[in-house]
Each structure stands twice: as structure tokens, then as C-alpha cells.
């Protein structure tokens, strides 16, 4: 994997995550009690032996930078290679939308990296996979581009994904982005392996023709010119593109099979260390079916919930089916059910908040209720 570099594309955003992405990019969305979304793909890359990772950013990348800093926690502080944050530039191409401009603005970084292969990934898919397998398969099959995909059981939400048509040899014959009427079940996991030269060709091809999107213009318009192959993934996958999927994914982690698969199976998930003390359960606390991060102090009752680092649950407070982010405080006797609480929120004594499982309430960062 010495010959493979990684690029994480954090230039896309999801409107439907509302308040959660108001102050941060998608890759920086907190999840799973102590992580941000980028931790999963970044750890996948590092655990697979990739030592050079560039992160393409758009707006709001302050939280992301604060989180990854120099890449120390991912062992990416290297004399040669390591972690590169690739900030956006003034839109000199006059392009509306699309991601090609971001790649184009950092052509220098891509060209001057010594690796011949590149793994490109999106910013909001959560899975744990040893990428060596897909890179090996890519080289073996002599494909130009290999795309990681999963066969979904529920095809009613195909519009959330890019759908692939794959023939018996494994070659991708057609792709459709966010299609509402596609009947297949093979969804792209927005992770692509190719030679760097091909990426450079694609970028050049798009820019010189006024095209703006790597997948729609680069891949789909060249589907006959390049050999695109699929690589099937069968493990746990969640795409975080709405409040509902965010909520579902976090609740999924209360399933011990998923907990074990996602956090241990193919490698450990690295994240920024906060040196929080152990979680403390006071004498009269009751905690059932919960994922609790270090630094929490629990005196009240917690059920079916995720508590991030440093959450305080005071006496008599009741928490059901909630996601409570870092350093939030639930005061005496408060009752909250089906609520997503952002960082550093305070729910004062005796307050009651209740959302619906299918439509949880979101409380924005630093709110006092």
C-alpha cells in the first residue's frame, strides 16, 4: 500500500442534516459517542497501510481541522507524506456545483505525491473495511476504475445513492445518481480505486470541456472508454444523509454485533483523544441498553441512548432514545425522549422534550433550554 494515496472528498453537504451541519462540514459530524464521520474512512485508510491522505474541504472546515489537526491520532504525522488538508480556493473556474473544481485546485498535491494509485472516498459513509482487498482486486482485474458497492435489501431508498448496473464479469455498464426509478439493488459506496494517471485524465477531461462532476461527468460519460469494475462489500454500512439516517445509525450501534463489527473487525477506529476520566455511574443511576463514552457522570436514568464524552445526567433526569453530544448537561428531573442534542447544550431542571422516533427533535449546539 506504499504505492496508494487516499483522498477524502469533504466538499459535499447534505441539506437534510439541518442543525447538525450548520456549523460543521459533513465529515466533521459527531457520531458514535466519541467519533466524527471522517474517523471511519480515515481509519480504514490508515489501517490498510495508506500513509498519504488529502482531505478536500469546502466551507465550514474549522471543526474538521480542529478534529484531525496534524493527523497525530491516525499516525499521519510523517516527514514524508502524512495528512494534507486541502482548503477551497476562490472559484476561479466559474463552476456552479460539482466537485471537479476542488480536485483541480489541488492538482499540484495530487501530481507531486509519489504514489501511483489513489483511493478516493466520500465523507458520509460509515463502514470498517480493509482496503487492501479492493486494491489487490483492482490490480488483478486490470480495471481502470474499481467502485466499492453494496447490494441493498431495501431498494425503496435508491434515490439516496448512486445505483450501479453490473454485468456478470463484474464490469459496470451503467450508473445513475440519485435516481428515483432505478430497480436495481447495487449501490455505490462512493469509494473508488484507480491509477493516479486516470484521475488526472478525468480531471483534465472535465475541466477542458466545462464539466464539473467526477462521477456524473468523469465516470458516467466515459463508461465505455474506461473499464469500471465493481467490488462487493457485505458488511455493515450506513450513509448519513438525513436526521433519520443519522439517528438510525447511532441506534444501530446498540446492537452488539454491529458494535463489534464496526469497531473491531477490520481494524480499530482512531479519533481525537480528549483524556476524559472513566465514566462514573452513581449509586442510584439506572442505565439500560446504552453506549456511554468516558467522562460521563450519570446519576439519573438512561435507556436506549448514546452519550458522548463528558455528558452529565443529574439526579432524577430521564433519557430515552436520545443521542447526546459532548459536554451536554441534563439537569435534575428533566425528561427527554427521541431527541438529538448537539454539543454543550443544557437542558435545565424539570424540562420535558419529546420527539418522535421517526422524527427526532434536534437541539442546536450550546442551546440552553
Amino acid at each position, binding site marked *: 500500500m506504499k504505492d496508494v494515496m487516499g483522498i477524502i472528498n469533504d466538499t459535499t453537504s447534505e441539506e437534510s442534516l439541518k442543525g447538525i451541519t450548520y456549523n460543521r462540514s459533513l465529515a466533521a459530524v459527531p457520531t*458514535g*459517542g*466519541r467519533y466524527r464521520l471522517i474517523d471511519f474512512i480515515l481509519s480504514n485508510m490508515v489501517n490498510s497501510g495508506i500513509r498519504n491522505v488529502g482531505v478536500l474541504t469546502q466551507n465550514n472546515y474549522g471543526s474538521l481541522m480542529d478534529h484531525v489537526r496534524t493527523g*497525530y491520532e491516525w499516525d499521519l504525522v510523517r516527514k514524508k507524506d502524512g495528512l494534507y488538508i486541502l482548503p477551497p480556493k476562490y472559484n476561479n473556474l466559474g463552476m456552479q456545483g460539482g466537485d471537479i473544481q476542488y480536485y483541480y485546485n489541488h492538482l499540484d498535491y495530487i501530481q507531486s505525491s509519489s504514489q501511483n494509485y489513489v483511493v478516493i472516498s466520500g465523507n458520509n459513509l460509515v463502514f470498517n473495511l480493509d482496503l487492501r482487498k479492493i486494491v489487490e482486486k483492482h490490480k488483478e482485474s486490470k480495471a481502470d476504475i474499481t467502485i466499492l458497492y453494496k447490494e441493498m435489501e431495501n431498494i425503496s431508498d435508491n434515490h439516496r445513492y448512486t445505483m450501479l448496473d453490473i454485468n456478470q464479469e463484474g464490469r459496470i455498464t451503467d450508473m445513475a445518481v440519485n435516481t428515483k426509478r432505478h430497480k436495481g439493488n447495487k449501490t455505490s459506496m462512493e469509494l473508488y480505486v484507480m491509477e493516479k494517471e486516470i484521475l488526472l485524465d478525468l480531471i483534465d477531461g472535465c475541466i477542458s470541456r466545462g464539466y464539473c462532476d467526477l462521477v456524473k461527468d468523469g465516470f458516467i460519460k466515459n463508461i465505455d472508454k474506461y473499464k469500471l469494475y465493481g467490488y462487493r462489500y457485505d458488511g455493515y454500512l450506513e450513509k448519513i444523509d438525513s436526521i433519520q439516517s443519522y439517528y438510525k445509525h447511532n441506534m444501530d450501534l*446498540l446492537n*452488539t454485533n454491529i*458494535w463489534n463489527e*464496526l*469497531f473491531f473487525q477490520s481494524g*480499530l*477506529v*482512531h479519533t481525537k*483523544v480528549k*483524556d476524559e*476520566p*472513566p*465514566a*462514573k*455511574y*452513581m*449509586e*442510584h*443511576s439506572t*442505565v*439500560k*441498553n*446504552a*453506549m*456511554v*463514552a*468516558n*467522562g460521563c*457522570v450519570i446519576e439519573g436514568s438512561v435507556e436506549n441512548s*448514546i*452519550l*458522548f464524552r463528558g455528558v452529565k445526567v443529574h439526579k432524577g433526569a430521564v433519557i430515552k432514545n436520545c443521542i447526546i453530544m459532548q459536554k451536554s448537561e441534563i439537569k435534575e428531573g428533566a425528561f427527554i425522549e427521541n431527541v438529538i442534542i448537539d454539543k454543550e447544550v443544557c437542558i435545565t431542571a424539570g424540562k420535558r422534550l419529546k420527539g418522535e422516533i421517526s422524527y427526532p427533535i434536534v437541539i442546536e449546539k450550546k442551546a440552553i433550554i
Partner: protein
Amino acid sequence: MSRKECIAMLLAGGQGSRLGILTKKLAKPAVPFGGKYRIIDFTLSNCSNSGIDTVGVLTQYQPLVLNSYIGIGSHWNLDRKNGGVTVLPPYVRDKGGEWYKGTANAVYQNIDFIDQYNPEYVLVVSGDHIYKMDYSLMMDYHKEKNADVTIAVIEVPWEETFRFGIMNTNEECAIEEFEEKPVNAKNNLASMGVYIFNWEKLRSYLIEDENDFESSHDFGKNIIPKMLHDQQKMFAYPFKGYWKDVGTLDSLWEANMDLLSDNPELNLYDNKWKVYSVNPTQPPQYIAPEAVISKALVNEGCQVFGEVKNSMLFPGVYVGEGSVIEDSVIMPNVKIGKNVYIKKAIIAEETLLEDCCQIGQKDNTGLTVIAEKMKIPQGVLIKSNSVISLENYQEFGCETRLANNEEE
């Protein structure tokens, strides 16, 4: 190397022999404590939080775990271009070499290391103690008193004075007399093993002490009494707060239990004074629907399906369904099967407890200790007060998880 006003010498070479089986393969400073720490984390964090950025760590006994744990000090924010952490084992010189013969000799053998930084002051601390202390305040006091030596002291109960080195002081806190473990103490101010010396002075005393063949080369036994005798300016710095030397298995258990109370004297939850440690890269803990947890400290990577009462789980501990853990300290990566009962025990790292075994007895207040990497087979009962180690595990019907060639 540029000059430093003050550097720290951290004594971490002790065996802590009274901790018995826990320190068989581990120096005392590396013994796990407080749910996610090792004992040395407290002193290293004190240095870091007090603004001391140059720390020499003197190691000798079983240093492997300690060496890899300390690394280049980055976990305590002590990886620095100039200074930082340096691990200092004894080494061979042109005229041969020898082990550290005592605490003072350990520092003596590293005079060259200290001289590299040409410091005004040297802080000598021990890696065996659990406390949070701002050394910079002690340094201010040392300068204010214009002292040659300042020794941190803490009030201990009068009935326990016989266990400590007691400082007899005058009203200005000047030390007039030092008594090691006195039978009839005149004062109850015990030395905490935290010293600030003017380096030039200490340097000459260390050299003098080295040439004294009757000396046991110890700070408490030799250097301090000699300096007192010579009427150097020595002051006691009264420290208020939690300080503990967890010298024995019982006191280690007790100090861990102290942390479970509602407002323990040692506050680990102060964001302004974090205790740093090496992070194990584990997910948040999972508490199952059938689990019962009360009065407990639990860490990352734990999975709890059973009952945990008045106990502490270090990272990566698994507690199976129907198991009950009471009044116990369970160290990292211990796996506990189903329907296991544990009462008042310390279970060291990576031990495996199979289904239905029992450690300790319900109405017995004796402490049971199980060494690292043991395997307690299904249904085995280990009575209270037992200590199970590599030497005797077969007598108890237990097995070891170590590969054969690791056994001694």
C-alpha cells in the same frame, strides 16, 4: 541544549515489592490505577500541568512496559524539541557501570544528563504516588523562602506517623529535624517524596554521598539528614489535598475504592487539571438492557451484560450475562464469562474467567488477587484471601494464558 530553569527527575525504578504478584513483571509506577491510568500518569501529568517540560525518568526494575508506555512522552504533552521526556536506565561508562544503588545514586549517575540543561533547580519526584499537585506553586515558595531545599509535606493522622518520614518544623516552616518512621512522633507532617533542590548544592552533596562508603545513597536516609546536619536552608512546603502511596495490595484496592464515592478527594473530573494517560483506541462502553450498574467507574471498550456494583472496570473488560461483580478492581481486557461471581478482588490484565467460576466469598472481607493472563476454568471457586500467580495457579486448578516459553 538551551538552559532550563528547572528540570524534573522522576524516580521510577522501584519494584514495589509489597504489591507482590502485580509487580512481578511490572515496575510499580506502571501498575494500573483509577480505571484508566497507570500510577506514573499522575506524576507525569503533574509535571506537564505545572509547566515542567524536561523530565528524566529513572528506570531500573522491569522497565519494558514502562518504557513503551512512556514513549517520547507525547501522551502527557511532553514531546518537546528541547527537553521533553528522557528515559534514563543505568548504563556502562569507561570505568564500568553499575545498577542504581539508591534514589540518590540514581540521580548521581545522571549528573551529566542534568548538567546538559544547566538548571537552577532540580525537582525530584517519585513515580509511586497518587496525587495532583502544582509544582510551580512549590517553586514560588522555594524562591520566596530563598531555600536550598524545599520538601513537600502533608498532614497525616497522628496514629499513622510511624509509617512516614516526619518533618519537625518551626513556625516559619523551616525544617529542624527529620525522623524516618518515628515511634513517638513530635509532628504529623510527612514527607511526600517531592523535593526541590538548588542544583549546585545538590550536585555537591551527591558527589560527597557517592564517596561515602557507608551511605545507602538514599535521599531520605542520607542526603536530607546530611544537609540538615550542615544547616542548609531547608523548608517544608505544606500541601493540602489527596496524596497516597499505594504500597500494598490492600492500599491499592482501597485507593481505587475511594474513587467510587460521590465526591472523592481525588477529583479526576477537573478539566483544568486533566490526568493524561495512553489512550487504548476503544469505542465507548456498551451497557446491555439486562445490565445493572451502580457506584462504578467504567471505561472505553467495556461491554457489560451482568451486574457491576461498587467496582471499577478498566478498558476492554467484558462482563457476561448473569455475572455479579462487587467491590472489585478489574484491570484492562479481563474477560468474564456468564454467571461468574466476584467479591472484593483485584484481577490483573488479560485474565480470563470462564462461566460459573467464583472469586472471593460473599461474607468474607478478605481481598483476593489474581495475576495477569491467568485462566480460571469453568466452575472453579477461589476462596477469599487467595493470591493466584504463576507460582501457584495449579494448586487452585487454574491455567495460564501465557505461552510456555514465557513461564518462569
